[in-house]
């Protein structure tokens, strides 16, 4: 219930704050007009509520922001150098990163943050299995990919520590990924449902695609709708 109220209140307060930021003054007039306009905007442009975890750790939030700023500077200098250096030989990679969060918000912010940090742009997101597909610039060989993947997971880790749900924190502690859990669930369901049938016999690729079909239940609007 607390998380539900917060989920509605946070975007509303964000709109009010934005209004005051744009006017550049923190006066009663700006506050009252901001509240009126925020109410009008939330009623006319109704959006499905973002599910917040109801938990925010200011210290880890600050750690995330400072680290993000450092990463932005590093990434910009790095890309600028790659663009300007004399002997540029293109060599890129597209790789998958299975995340540990089930929250849309954390997933979105992870995707936003890693698009600004060294090396990566989000090409595709599989919401069901919480997997990001990233494009990385200047990857010389396949051996460099695990290090990049680790950097992305570190970003996600900072976000979960800052505002993730207890569920996500638990997964962070055990190191389990959503994709892995879904695959295990699907395999268990298949084994319990139809023992001896050939469907559950492929543990690798087969179970991953099965999990994708099974779990797309809760309000999959954006990722499902955009998929063609």
């Amino acid at each position, binding site marked *: 219930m607390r998380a539900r109220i917060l989920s509605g209140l946070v975007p509303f307060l964000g709109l009010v704050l*934005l209004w*005051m*930021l*744009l*006017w*550049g*003054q*923190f006066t009663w007039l700006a506050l009252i007009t901001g509240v009126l306009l925020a109410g009008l905007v939330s009623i006319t442009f109704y959006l499905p509520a973002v599910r917040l975890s109801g938990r925010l750790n200011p210290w880890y939030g600050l750690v995330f922001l400072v680290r993000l700023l450092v990463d*932005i*500077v590093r*990434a*910009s*200098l*790095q*890309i*600028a*150098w*790659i*663009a*300007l250096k004399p002997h*540029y030989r*293109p*060599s*890129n*990679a*597209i*790789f*998958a990163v299975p995340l540990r969060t089930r929250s849309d918000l954390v997933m979105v912010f992870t*995707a*936003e943050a890693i*698009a*600004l940090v060294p090396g990566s*742009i*989000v*090409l*595709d997101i599989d919401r069901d299995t919480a997997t990001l*597909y990233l*494009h990385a*610039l200047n*990857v*010389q*060989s*396949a051996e460099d*990919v695990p290090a990049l993947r680790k950097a992305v997971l570190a970003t996600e880790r900072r976000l979960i520590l800052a505002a993730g749900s207890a569920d996500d924190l638990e997964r962070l502690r055990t190191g389990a990924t959503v994709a892995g859990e879904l695959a295990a669930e699907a395999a268990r369901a298949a084994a319990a449902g139809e023992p001896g049938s050939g469907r559950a016999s492929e543990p*690798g*690729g*087969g179970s*991953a*695609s099965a999990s*994708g079909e099974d779990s797309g239940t809760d309000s999959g609007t954006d990722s499902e709708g955009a*998929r*063609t």
Partner: protein
Amino acid sequence: MNPIDFSFGDDGFDLRDAVTAVLVLLAALMCFAAGVGLVRFPDVLSRLHAATKPQILGLIAIVADVAVTNLSVGTVTLAVAIIFFQGLTAPAAAHMTGRAAFRTDHFREDILVVDELTSRPDADRRS
């Protein structure tokens, strides 16, 4: 906005001028690098890197410079809002462009050392 006074005042060296000079130069360099990268990088996906990353540091530098030059609550809050929204929208724009480019095969496969998106388990389900 006040006209910028290029002369060092009678008190000699002004710290604010030095900060301004550094920030403007940094921003110019970053925007230049982004432009060079756009021309020089081989395919759409690589060019998106050039279009997002140096550009955002350049923007942060120039906005910070404006905020330092005429310091007031109004400019600082506006600067924060600009950086926040640019930081949110630039990756989203890059993502949409990158996804469209990938799905229409507008990228060079010969310069990829790894490609886990084409070979992913459920690739056949979507095509």
